[in-house]
């Protein structure tokens, strides 16, 4: 596929996104506290943690929806923390939302073409990209259906399609598998792997631990706004701090 994500498949080689001492406070509440993170190009990076641990806030900071309080966000060596959301999208970061927000009163096709226009130089190029992306996400037969008339799994795929159409280098997904059946979760996982193989780096927030563990190359764990662990899925699975964060200190896990 020529249009979307045509990049070298150098896995885990270059630091694509670098968060340094990233902090965000809302008045007295510190939502994100001195988070240091580095995402490499070509990997699938999972972000997990209990509810309210600051994962979505982190996404909002990276995508420009929120202004950081302290720290820095560097994308491809460029400081992006002061840029507006549309400028950040132009530089190659796309994100989806926790609750799917398709444009309700326009068709799936129109939804996606708006994303495609991010990089496409003309409406006709955008149209071509739209068809490619709709085909990849199995939405081609629904292209004329209005956003509000799509089922939940279709809306999630539409969110994904729309963000993909912007031709991102980094795709940030906020719980893309929530509300899906086990079969649909597997299909989504397959789709994400295909996207990664196209050269797009993926940062994914997900609560379905089984899926995140099998999908991710590396994982970071947030709790109360701080990073408490980072490593491969195996390392994270064995980490006592992670277990405590999810289940509380009284539980002890037998060695697996």
């Amino acid at each position: 596929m020529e249009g979307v994500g045509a990049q070298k498949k150098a896995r885990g080689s270059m630091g694509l996104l670098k968060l340094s001492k990233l902090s965000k406070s809302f008045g007295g509440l510190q939502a994100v506290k001195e988070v240091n993170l580095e995402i490499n190009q070509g990997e699938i990076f999972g972000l997990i943690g209990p509810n309210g641990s600051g994962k979505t806030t982190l996404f909002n900071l990276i995508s420009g929806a929120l202004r950081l309080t302290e720290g820095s966000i560097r994308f491809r060596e460029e400081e992006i923390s002061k840029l507006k959301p549309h400028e950040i999208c132009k530089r190659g970061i796309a994100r989806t939302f926790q609750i799917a927000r398709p444009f309700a009163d326009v068709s799936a096709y129109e939804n996606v073409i708006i994303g495609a226009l991010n990089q496409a130089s003309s409406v006709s190029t955008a149209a071509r990209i739209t068809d490619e992306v709709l085909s990849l996400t199995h939405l081609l037969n629904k292209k004329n259906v209005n956003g509000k008339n799509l089922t939940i799994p279709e809306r999630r795929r539409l969110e994904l399609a729309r963000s993909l159409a912007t031709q991102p280098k980094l795709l940030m997904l906020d719980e893309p598998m929530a509300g899906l059946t086990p079969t649909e979760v597997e299909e989504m996982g397959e789709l994400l792997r295909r996207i990664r193989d196209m050269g797009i780096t993926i940062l994914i927030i997900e609560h379905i631990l089984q899926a995140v563990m099998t999908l991710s190359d590396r994982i970071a764990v947030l709790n109360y706004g701080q990073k408490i662990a980072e490593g491969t899925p195996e390392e994270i699975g064995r980490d006592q701090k992670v277990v405590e964060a999810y289940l509380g200190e009284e539980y002890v896990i037998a060695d697996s």
Partner: protein
Amino acid sequence: MFFSTPSLKRAIFILFVMALFSAPLFVKSDYHLTVLIGALYGAYICVCWNLAAGYAGLFSLGHQAFLGLGAYTSTILFIKYEITPWVGMFVGGIIAAVFGSFITFVCYRYRVKGMFFAVATLAFGFLLQALFMTWDYVNASTGIWLTLQNKPQNFFFMARAPYYWVICGLLVISLLITYCLERSRLGYYMVAIREDEDVAESLGVNSSKSKVIVMALSAFLTALGGTFYAQFYLYISPACVLSMDPLITMQVGTLVGGSGTLFGPVIGWAFFSLLGEYLRGLPFGGTAVGVISRIIWGLSLLLVILFLPTGMIGLGRKLVGLLPWIRKKASIRETGS
């Protein structure tokens, strides 16, 4: 969305344009031509307002300011500097565009949106009207008269028909611009911004830049209408071109006909001006006619807005939807099967 199939829209448009331009061949009476010109002028300013309010969501309650800026710029340039209104028209348009861009930019820079933006534009309109009412350079509230002369090069015609063709041309051009906008990158961005501005921004849409561009375009075109008003009615004053009256025209036509659609403003205003003319002809006698016609006018506006929020285009779509073959197309769109 039955009316949005390109070939049907194009066909309607071409027929419409043909009928429009050929009217003076059949309508010979000066009175009737004047009525038609008035109606077309109203439709034109509705289409202009629709670009900003219907497509970009900029609910401008001060749009008459652009009308006034256009009318006064070309008139002053002509009377004091002998510059033909054909040129003055474009100068007025540019001045209006600058004002429109500035207001929109400043408002969006400081997050003045939606109804607050409407109030800001309302203030702007009143401000400009007050300014012109006390400014001697433009003859303050007395206004300016233009003398009719046989000088087409100065945008004066002795007969009505040429004026009719000019306003036709303006209307057709504004509709073409709307049509092209709908299909352009900017048009898609407008849809995204209307649907969900935050999501649009996350997809790379620069919403403030897009709004500024559309407002500038709308202001420019509205100002051209202002010059036409001056050249046809031959008298301008803050009460004519800077008051709420033209704004009410713009709003009524657009909202009744269906904002954010191509033909909505035209159909809406056509309906209302015909209604107005009919009411004026009723034998109620004396000043009662004016009062009663306004009451009925207001009531029908109220009814349309309460029960037909999508305007007459929406009603048209519902009626056309009763035809079986279009119904089938609609169900495919709804369910995707």
